């Protein structure tokens, strides 16, 4: 990347951290932001013409993706996952440790980082397991994992069920300055549930998972975060009771608590399970699609600032694994390439949030919560940039996704707002030729 110069010319630059929103050119030199200003001269730099109406934003960061490698390469590989990431506008992703074997060891962290470096598209930040094998029994060597490159710890896919382990993890990770991220779900209340407990599950005869299965653990974790002062982040929040718990924590001044919401939880409700296709396994995710009150609470939390981050919980599964009875299908949908259009369509174009807030939820805030570089286009920042086309019509085509898996419920959806280009370290790694 050294020696290269790139000038993004035209367009509207929105950088919530720098407090900048207006027509600016942006000059990149040696992979970093060199200058932001009006009508900058090209001086031999490669020129990227940013079309009228397009947005130049700090590179988007998704702190919740499953890249499946090592161990489940038939679903996704690090290489295919980062292709999907940049196609979705993400310049960086943090990948979950529930690989096979679990990323509970520096050797696996290093392998992931090597593969990511070889793919050379989006930046990849590994997340380590809280406990060995994510079994919830013995704490993993968090210090060694951090030294190897892990940016956070979680047993995602599973909750940290033991309150004692959670307490110790928060204390220990607090010492290291790294957040503990919890998949909140009381195992006994979840049982063998497959859908949100409510009218729809009752009608369809699906075993329910109540919203409190999630919030009861959020409540517990907030109490432990208060006790320990450790940095705590709630994964893929879905229930209105969980949002209430996080809001109360923030209201009493707890700055060490943060949370994320996935697009499907602010776009869809459990009613989608009934129509147009009943029992569509591409609507089976954990936490499940919840009721209208929950969906609306997520929208409110996004608008009022309670929600810190939008993260996709990109969970690729092979088509054969989803083409089974609803009970037997794995939980999860792909999300990297559908996130931006859903955020534009449901949050920005509806006027629920400003464009700057949307960008903060997708770049500055994830960077802050996980203490990552990026999230701003101030001079000398890494030149990780996403060029957005807010008014571009987008039709989601599952078959055309860059991800190795196509398990999305949004196939065929026509939305407004897409990604024009993705630039990582000053290098254009994705360009939407259709725009």
């Amino acid at each position, binding site marked *: 990347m050294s020696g290269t110069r790139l000038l993004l010319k035209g367009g509207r630059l929105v950088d919530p951290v720098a407090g900048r929103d207006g027509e600016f050119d942006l000059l990149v030199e040696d992979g970093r932001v060199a200058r932001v200003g009006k009508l900058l001269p090209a001086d031999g730099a490669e020129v990227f013409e940013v079309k009228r109406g397009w947005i130049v934003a700090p590179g988007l960061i998704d702190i919740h993706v499953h890249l499946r490698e090592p161990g489940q390469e038939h679903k996704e590989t690090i290489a295919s996952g980062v292709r999907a990431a940049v196609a979705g506008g993400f310049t960086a992703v943090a990948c979950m440790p529930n690989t096979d074997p679990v990323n509970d060891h520096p050797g696996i962290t290093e392998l992931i980082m090597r593969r990511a470096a070889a793919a050379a598209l989006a930046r990849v930040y590994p997340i380590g397991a809280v406990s060995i094998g994510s079994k919830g029994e013995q704490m993993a060597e968090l210090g060694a994992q951090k030294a190897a490159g892990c940016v956070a710890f979680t047993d995602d896919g599973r909750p940290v069920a033991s309150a004692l382990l959670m307490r110790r993890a928060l204390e220990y990770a607090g010492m290291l300055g790294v957040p503990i991220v919890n998949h909140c779900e009381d195992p006994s209340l979840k049982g063998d549930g497959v859908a949100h407990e409510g009218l729809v599950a009752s009608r*369809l*005869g*699906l075993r329910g998972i109540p919203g409190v299965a999630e919030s009861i653990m959020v409540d517990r974790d907030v109490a432990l975060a208060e006790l320990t002062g450790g940095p705590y982040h709630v994964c893929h929040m879905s229930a209105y009771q969980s949002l209430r718990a996080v809001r109360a924590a923030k209201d009493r001044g707890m700055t060490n608590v943060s949370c994320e919401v996935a697009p499907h939880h602010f776009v869809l409700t459990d009613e989608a399970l009934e129509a147009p296709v*009943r*029992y569509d396994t591409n609507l089976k995710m954990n936490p499940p699609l919840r009721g209208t009150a929950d969906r609306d609470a997520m929208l409110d939390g996004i608008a009022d600032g309670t929600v810190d981050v939008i993260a996709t919980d990109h969970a690729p599964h092979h088509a054969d694994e989803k083409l*089974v009875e609803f009970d*037997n299908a794995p939980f999860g949908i792909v999300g990297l390439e559908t996130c931006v259009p859903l955020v534009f369509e449901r949050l920005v174009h509806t006027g629920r949030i400003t464009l700057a807030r949307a960008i903060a939820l997708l770049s500055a805030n994830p960077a802050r919560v996980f203490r990552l570089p990026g999230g701003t286009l101030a001079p000398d920042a890494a030149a990780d940039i996403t060029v957005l086309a807010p008014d571009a019509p987008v039709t989601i085509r599952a078959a055309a996704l860059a991800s190795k898996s196509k398990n999305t419920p949004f196939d065929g959806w026509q939305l407004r707002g897409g990604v024009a280009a993705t630039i990582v370290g000053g290098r254009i790694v994705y360009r939407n030729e259709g725009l």
Partner: protein
Amino acid sequence: MLKSRHLLGIADLGPDEIALILDTAEAMTEIAARPIKKVPTLRGRTVVNLFFEPSTRTRTSFEVAEKRLSADTLSIAVAQSSVTKGETLLDTVRNLEAMAPDMIVMRHACSGAPHLLARLCRSVIINAGDGMHEHPTQALLDAFTIREHKRRLDGLKVAIVGDLLHSRVLRSNVQLLNTMGADVWACGPATLIPADLARFGITVTTSIERAVADADVVMMLRIQHERMHGHFIPSTREYYALFGLTPERLGRAKPDVIIMHPGPMNRGVEIDSEVADGPHSVILAQVTNGVAVRMAVLYLLAGQEGEAD
């Protein structure tokens, strides 16, 4: 004629279609009364009974119905072992489809399994019970039996008592009886009431006395012992004490109340033997009517083969 080419659930049927099935079943009862109980209606047609869950009663009833209509039938009890061998439901059915059956009657432990097949297979699919979702032919035979005894469905008070949570019979019956204008009451322990059941448009209570009071029909549901590991009830003894249909409780119902049960019964758990075998019981009539109703369904769906979905 029926709008859908499959019978996946009562939810898909309108009142006219339900009435059509019941009227057709009425005509079918006459066949059972003949010395030679067979008509050529489905001659040359192949029906596969695919049971992923054990069920003597429903499977036998379908088999008898198919044979009386002269269909070629094949009954397959798919042991859980084929699942552990790694074959998917879809593979199993595609293998069967390669032998060109016309209809598949399917029982499966997972809700929605027949819907998956209906989407992906050529054959006409008849749901013979899917998980906790629907058991449409049971509800139809129940309605037929009620109509046989009460001459109508609308305005009747029907109390459904038992394990509501796990019951596909409940879900199908509620939809059918609601559609046909009955006043439906559902009663069971609080631990066995599905979330938001009252929003099905019925009255929900935990008092069997209230449910049974002035009822025209009392429909008992089986306590599913095999599912009782989730702290649902403390013991079957306590269940009988609180929810068992005893002669005393039955005394609160209308004098001409009928007692129904989809079987198999747990005597002394959900129902007292004296009630099960008493003059109000129509439990065996339900079994007899099951054949006629299933003949009607097979006949009506066979008539639509080849038509677009």
